[in-house]
């Protein structure tokens, strides 16, 4: 099977502190992957590098066969952080801009997501709560036909019901078998059924890379495996 994402020896240093060290991983097309690790493990940095908005210092990366850069942003959707949404617009205005800005925007998906995520279009983005902000980010990501979707912490700081809504929306929009999804999170317990495969990122390097079913076949949950990997 063709690999959606290939990393070979990826490293990154900031302010003389190593953030990623020799990350080597290969993710086939159509998998839903959980990138798990505590805060500060380098999850966000890795996703930014895969999205092509941050250049790695070492190593070789291919996203659908291309090195990441602005060109791969055309088929990669990275969940924008809170501050990376256009705060000066309302949700509705942003959607109108997004339709024109993204060549792969699907208005059908957009309508479905606006309903599913219960977005109020007249709300100014700058004044959204954390949960609403994440939902607008998800809309921005998932309304595109992008074959690679990178979601950074889509669940933190959000109440349980909204989390379930978000998880369902992710599965519904990404579940046609052609989209590769990476979800970075430290909320393992509730959402582990979302992952075909889990990568454990510890201090900037991959501590384990397993399929979720292989973990369960050993009678272990992903959460207990997480505890095993990260407990000192």
């Amino acid at each position, binding site marked *: 099977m063709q690999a959606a994402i290939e990393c070979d020896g990826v490293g990154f240093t900031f302010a003389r502190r190593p953030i990623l060290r020799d990350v080597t991983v290969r993710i086939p097309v159509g998998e839903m992957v959980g990138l798990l690790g505590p805060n500060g493990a380098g999850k966000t940095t890795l996703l930014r590098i895969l999205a092509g908005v941050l250049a790695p210092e070492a190593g070789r990366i291919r996203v659908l066969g291309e090195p990441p850069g*602005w060109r791969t*942003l055309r088929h990669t959707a990275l969940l924008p952080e809170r501050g990376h949404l256009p705060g000066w617009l309302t949700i509705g205005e942003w959607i109108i*801009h997004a339709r024109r800005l993204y060549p792969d925007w699907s208005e059908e998906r957009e309508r479905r997501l606006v309903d599913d995520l219960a977005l109020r279009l007249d709300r*100014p983005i700058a004044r959204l709560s954390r949960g609403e902000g994440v939902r607008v980010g998800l809309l921005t990501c998932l309304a595109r036909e992008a074959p690679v979707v990178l979601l950074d912490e889509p669940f933190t700081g959000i109440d349980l019901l909204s989390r379930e809504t978000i998880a369902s929306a992710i599965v519904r929009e990404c579940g046609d078998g052609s989209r590769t999804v990476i979800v970075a999170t430290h909320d393992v317990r509730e959402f582990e059924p979302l992952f075909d495969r889990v990568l454990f990122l510890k201090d900037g390097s991959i501590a384990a890379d397993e399929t979720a079913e292989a973990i369960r076949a050993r009678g272990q949950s992903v959460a207990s495996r997480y505890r095993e990997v990260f407990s000192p």
Partner: protein
Amino acid sequence: MTHADRWLALWRFEWSRGRGGQRPWKRRLVWLLVAAGVSLAAGLTISASTSASPNRVGLASFTIWLLFGSFSLVRAGTGDGLGATAMLPYSRFTVVCVRAAVVYARLCGWCLLGAALSAAINAAYGLMRNPQVLGTLLSLLAAAALICMGLACVSAVLSALRSSAYRWMGTLGDMIGSGLIIFLCDDVARRGPLSEMHESWLVFAAVYAAYGVVAAAVGTRCLVRGTWLLTAGDEVERVRPEKAESSRRFMHRFDPNSSARGLRPQVKSVSVNLVRTAMFIFRMGLGRVLWPGGARPAWRAAVVLLFGPVIVFVALVALGWTSRDAHLLFARLEGGMIGGAWLWTMFCGFAVASLLEHLGDWMRGWPVRKEGVIAGFALAESLSTWLWLAAGVLGGVVLWAHLELAHLTRGEDVREVLLAGLVSVLVGTWNTVWSAAWTVCSERGDRFAWFSFEIFLAGVWFVEGGRVVAWFDTVAWPKVAGVAVAFLAVAAMALAPRLHAAARRLISP
């Protein structure tokens, strides 16, 4: 979707930034009227104090108007950050071009509006057909078009340059742009007849535009590398050395739980004693001001820090070397020092406010008087003026020595330069604490009015500073001492309630 459609979409998106979305047109109209009013008032003041000829009012107002544009419109494009744009699937070159073009279009609109305003003022004085005034206005417009090009380029990449080694290019570019406009204002308001030729303006402006293009190229590279993304918590990152090293010592001193080690009495006296808190915070903030490089190597931090003042020094000496009117030169230098200190320390206040915001709950938890915290950080931050003032004083002394050899000056000139340095330190320190306290506790709308007023005051200092210093120099020493004491008393009295309000706001935002 064609190429043109995509460009247009990006243009519309970037253009929507400045609209402010929810801001009603009435507010914007009021804003314009305020800007026009302040420009006119400043123009009147400047022309009254220098040339005493009404034919400069329109021109000077126009430059002040430009100064407003260079502050507010350039910020409009950077205020909400790059994030929203950088995630879009467009080449980084396209992104920078479109951003610069949008800011440029805005600035040009602003210039044309200002030119119309200036023409209206000129017409009111019956100067419509005066060839000198008309020619100067046209040259001003041409220079402004070039300066705006530089400003637009710098503004497009200002956020992209953050946290890279080239961060200074953005801040310096921003400052030079405003500096050039002040230079235009100064040249327009100069004593003597208006000349019709202003090639030097165009040369400077063109050089600045070229600088802007270079900065944009560097910024594009930074955008590609993505280092700007790593700025979240940058300020905290910068105080981190202090956090790590002195935090333990610091908490040790202030933590009421450390009473077991017999520190209780000291804790109590410190938390009561505002001045000691301020001094402690001052020492803590000192490293951040003197060594702003953070993780950068020391020599590089020093270069970054000294670059601006050294340039100022060189420019000052170069410009003053062939001066014909030494006294005017020194009066200008003195005014420039005080006015510059005023402007710079206003921004220092902003920096302190944003630092406090970044420190957030970490700082809120300190069991100390928050007035002392604000004052301490502000005092430390105000030290950054000293380098610039030192450049000014040193430049003044060098020029004085040079002109003394040619028997063009008298002893009082150098005395006045030193006095101006002293006044700037006093005034600047006060202004830093004041503007930090004000920024912390004011609403957005008030902030703009205050900001305009500060700029206006800086303008007054620029123009009248020399005369104030000259007056000080003629007055007997006891009187000066009296004025200084009175100044300190009034300044402290004005500051105390403001600091108190700011401290309250800090604790419960």
